[in-house]
């Protein structure tokens, strides 16, 4: 069965793909944190962040359509904020805009801008990270950055078995539809409820079987992994260089200075 993979395009080859997972995690995490803590009025700083992302994006040779398609995930949040703008009228006398009967306040617009630009930077960072790093290596990266093992293990199992679960759900759906199930009326909800319950039981039992298979190979509750390769000096230098740029953009942008 065909799945849409979380880490689609992560097996392409580019300078960004070749970077060590740890380097990328640190890089994108820093970028996001620096961006989120920047005051909304530091317009040039945001320009700087987006420029850094754009350069990385071009260097990664990811299909732009894929990246922008995925970024649409921010739209609902932006719409939600936009819906509240008319009610934010703190400075309606000072500098509000009047758009044919609807008053939009300046601070309201600023809030909208704040949300749009920060969520875009965050989402673009996440997409760049996950589309240039295969999921397994991403997890290894987090492990080597000393993320708690329980989190990486749970994430690994979720990723691994989401595909099995989707397959099982699809098979059940096919078997159901082969028997002329319509699913139009409220009493059809019963069948769907049974399916969900069934899926839960199957997952639960699979969990037990997987655990037995782990025990059979000597698992004792402690996760063991191979020591990874050392992160290379060029990777470290690259991350430091990009992070310096980001911080510089932040500092200069906040003071309203142009580079």
């Amino acid at each position, binding site marked *: 069965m065909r799945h849409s993979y979380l880490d689609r395009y992560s097996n392409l080859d580019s300078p960004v793909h070749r970077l060590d997972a740890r380097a990328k995690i640190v890089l994108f995490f820093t970028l996001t944190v620096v961006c989120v803590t920047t005051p909304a009025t530091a317009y040039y700083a945001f320009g700087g962040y987006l420029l850094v992302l754009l350069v990385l994006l071009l260097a990664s040779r990811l299909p732009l359509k894929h990246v922008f398609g995925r970024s649409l995930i921010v739209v609902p949040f932006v719409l939600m904020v936009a819906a509240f703008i008319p009610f934010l009228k703190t400075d309606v006398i000072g500098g509000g805009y009047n758009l044919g009967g609807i008053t939009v306040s300046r601070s309201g617009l600023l809030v909208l801008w704040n949300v749009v630009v920060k969520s875009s930077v965050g989402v673009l960072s996440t997409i760049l990270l996950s589309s240039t790093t295969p999921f397994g290596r991403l997890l290894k990266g987090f492990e080597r950055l000393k993320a708690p093992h329980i989190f990486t293990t749970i994430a*690994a199992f979720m*990723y691994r078995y989401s595909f099995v679960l989707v397959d099982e759900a699809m098979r059940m759906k096919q078997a159901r539809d082969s028997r002329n199930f319509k699913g139009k009326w409220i009493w059809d909800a019963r069948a769907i409820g049974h399916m969900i319950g069934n899926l839960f039981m199957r997952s639960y039992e699979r969990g037990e079987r997987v655990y037995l298979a782990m025990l059979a*190979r000597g698992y004792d509750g402690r996760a063991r992994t191979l020591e990874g390769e050392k992160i290379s000096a060029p990777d470290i230098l690259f991350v430091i260089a990009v992070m310096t740029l980001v911080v510089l953009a932040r500092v200069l942008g906040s003071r309203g200075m142009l580079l």
Partner: protein
Amino acid sequence: MQHHKAIEIKNLCYTYPDGTEALRNIDLSIENGESVAIIGPNGAGKSTLILHLNGLLRGKGEVRVFDLPINDENVREIRRRVGVVFQDPDDQLFSPTVFDDVAFGPLNMGLPRDEVERRVGKALEAVGMVGFEKRAAFHLSFGQKKRVAIATVLSMEPDVLVLDEPWGNLDPRGRRGLLNVLHSLPVTRLIVTHDLFYTMELCDRVVIMDEGRIVASGPLGQILADEGILEEHGLELPQTEPRALPTADRKVWGNLRSLKKS
């Protein structure tokens, strides 16, 4: 070690918490180097028996593996020596990559890095899956998953290989490939199945289980010649026409016919 019995079970009984009597007075011993098939209908207790061989379940009675009784002290050593390949490879392959899965056992044994890598390489070579190290298990075909599942156990270098229903869901080519892999491994084999056809080529002794008991045990030819007992326990000899089989399998068919006549 050669003279030791690989597995010795005496008077083993097991009842599931819900009251189902799964195993009743099982006596079974398997010599080092032997290839044994345990056959029986669904629900005969075959899979439950497997779970006793490495201490995942502990019933009443005695189970010894290379003379070691199963207890908390020995259980790690026993799990290293008895490699169990479960029925559904999706249960056995839970790591992000094939390499991680095959390395899981050796890592739990606390082996150093280069030894882990050597064993992973060797195990994947034994099942013909070299080059798949970085692939994710869910991208593999069922036959490939099955082979990797065997590699995850081989990397622990077990003395006994236990396979639960190895032929299930495999197409003829997959079964043939798996058969060749199993043939090439120099270990004691215990195969649990209800499919006799491929088992015949691999095992010298057959044990029939039904309703939690061992009802017959003997050399392959003797058991297969006794159609009465096979029928009584819901088993049958394959009735396939040789012409419908791949060339390699026609030979198996011929062997079976001659076994039955003798």
